[in-house]
């Protein structure tokens, strides 16, 4: 199909406008974080900051309790993701490789759990955690985040395990491996992309979670999303520092996302669409 000049130009022009639409907020966040105060509160916005400063980052990092919250966020995120991988691997293997009564029911439970309305369950979770006297602790957060990512992890890993040819496993069994050995030596290495994809999305979910930690934890038990919203309240109109804080918070996610995106998304379609 040959197209007219106009037919070739307008898609690119629209794409360029859309690109700006999607990237501009991110660009504005990062540049504001580096701009000196005078450029931030000028009547004409400075679109290309040539005089960068690191003072806003300095301020953000030295805000009280910052490093505690960084540690909290990492602890909760990493533990919940690892825990859910462990639990999900077992369940996904059973669902993908074995036939048993109640299998379909279990899959349905997983699918429904995936859609759990956590945003509106915070009150009862609060009461439960309060009964256990565990408010402001990282343990309940870890468990609940684990549960938030678990259904997705099971669902995706199940697809990946089903994609590993059964014959591979069987030949390992023939060669004298036990089923457990066959799993660890043959199936698990092939699951690497699946494990990567699921832990990536688990990481992002847990890292970003806001409603639950908002109600459960105060002060030293908080995580970075809370710090970010309060940072903004505490520092009011100091947009430089606020944007520096936002950039800090965003960077790990974007890096994880960009590095693993292609692999992960192909992994996702492989895992999730059909199994």
């Amino acid at each position, binding site marked *: *199909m040959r197209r007219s000049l106009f037919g070739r130009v307008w*898609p*690119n022009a629209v*794409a360029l406008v*859309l*690109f*700006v639409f*999607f990237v501009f*907020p*991110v660009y*504005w966040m990062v540049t*504001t974080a580096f701009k000196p105060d005078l450029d931030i509160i000028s009547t*004409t916005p400075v679109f290309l900051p040539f005089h960068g400063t690191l003072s806003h980052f300095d301020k953000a990092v030295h805000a009280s309790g910052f490093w505690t919250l960084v540690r909290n966020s990492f602890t909760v995120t990493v533990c919940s993701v690892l825990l859910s991988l*462990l*639990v*999900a691997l077992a*369940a996904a293997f*059973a669902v993908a490789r*074995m036939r048993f009564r109640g299998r379909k029911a279990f*899959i349905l*439970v997983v699918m*429904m759990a995936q*859609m759990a*309305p956590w*945003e*509106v369950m915070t*009150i*009862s979770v609060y*009461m439960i955690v309060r009964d256990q006297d565990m408010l402001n602790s990282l343990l309940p957060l870890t468990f609940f985040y*684990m*549960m*938030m990512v678990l259904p997705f992890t*099971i*669902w995706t890993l199940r697809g990946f395990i*089903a994609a590993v*040819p*059964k014959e591979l496993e069987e030949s390992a069994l023939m060669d004298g491996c036990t*089923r457990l050995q066959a799993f660890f030596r043959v199936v698990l290495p092939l699951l690497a992309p699946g494990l990567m994809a699921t832990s990536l*999305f*688990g990481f992002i*979910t847990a890292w*970003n*979670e*806001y*409603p639950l930690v908002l*109600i459960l934890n105060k002060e030293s038990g908080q995580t970075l999303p809370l710090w*970010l919203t309060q940072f903004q309240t505490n520092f009011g109109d100091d947009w430089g520092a*606020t944007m520096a*804080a936002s*950039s800090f918070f965003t960077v790990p*996610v974007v890096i994880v996302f960009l590095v693993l*995106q292609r692999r992960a998304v192909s992994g*996702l*379609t*492989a*895992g*999730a*669409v*059909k*199994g």
Partner: protein
Amino acid sequence: MAAQYRGTSTRAPDEAAVTPGPAGAPPGAGAPAPAGPRPSRGGALAGRATPYLLILPALAATVLLLGYPLVRNVIISFQTLDAFQLIQHTTQWAGFDNYKDQLTSAEFWHTTERSIFFTLANVALIMVGGTLIGLLLNRLGKRMRLTLSLGLILAWAMPYVAATTVYQWLFDTQYGVVNWVLWKLGWHSMHDYNWFGSQFSTFAVITLMVVWQSLPFVALNLYGGLTTISTEIFEAAWMDGATPWRTFRSVLFPMLRPFFLGTTFLEIIWVFKAFTQVYALNAGGPEGLTETLPVYAFVEGVGNQHYGTGAAISVLTILILMVLMSYYFRIILKQEDEL
């Protein structure tokens, strides 16, 4: 879930999890594990117990960490649980009072109405926009497609809370770049305009943000689906003189129907239960006029310390969500002939 990269979150990423549709079933992934007993080692009984042992941790976690909170939510909704009862650790049953109060209160119905309109507006924009961008991606040259995809992924990866602070800054009254641009474009009343001062403008900002965050998922997935369709089909339609709209309606839409249906329902569910974006942007303000149901439940329950009331609102919200989800599950279960 959402998890949020929608999680939660970020919600975005786990969205892909349940997306139905032909977003490219890859070779090898299609074959479901065939049934049939395998030679069990260590006795028939142990062999039969193995799958149950393997799903036990997941099942236990689901019952304890998801099932119990849901049940507890219902229990609390039948109690009067204010600050007093909370501190005294007393249980005071209220029967259906919380529900009666809500179902007869104008505020609850206004909030419900608002939630529905908010959801419809957002989902319409997301689906139409996402479809158009997906089609555009399919038409672009390689370099431009990569550029736009990169932009989409950046917006997609942006955590909700960070996006919220950025949008507050973009729409800041005094130094916000949006007001400046509008003013430069000749819209002089937008100088020093307070976006968070009225219901409509606050919703406009929230909507823009939610749509901005959600478009990439729909667009990239649709593009993924499009790549699985042979271009010859479009060429044939074009040769037959079909207009682009006609091609979309009669060729593309029927082929990707499961994708459109499934994604629409997913988006409805996600937008309906969106909490972070609405609450973190303006806490449901001004004067509670932008509270959607999840925010309303939180503000009544936690903010005003009427936990019983909040729980009742959240049970009602969950009921609405369950209706939506049942539609969603009906759609995807139809495609999953083999679970």
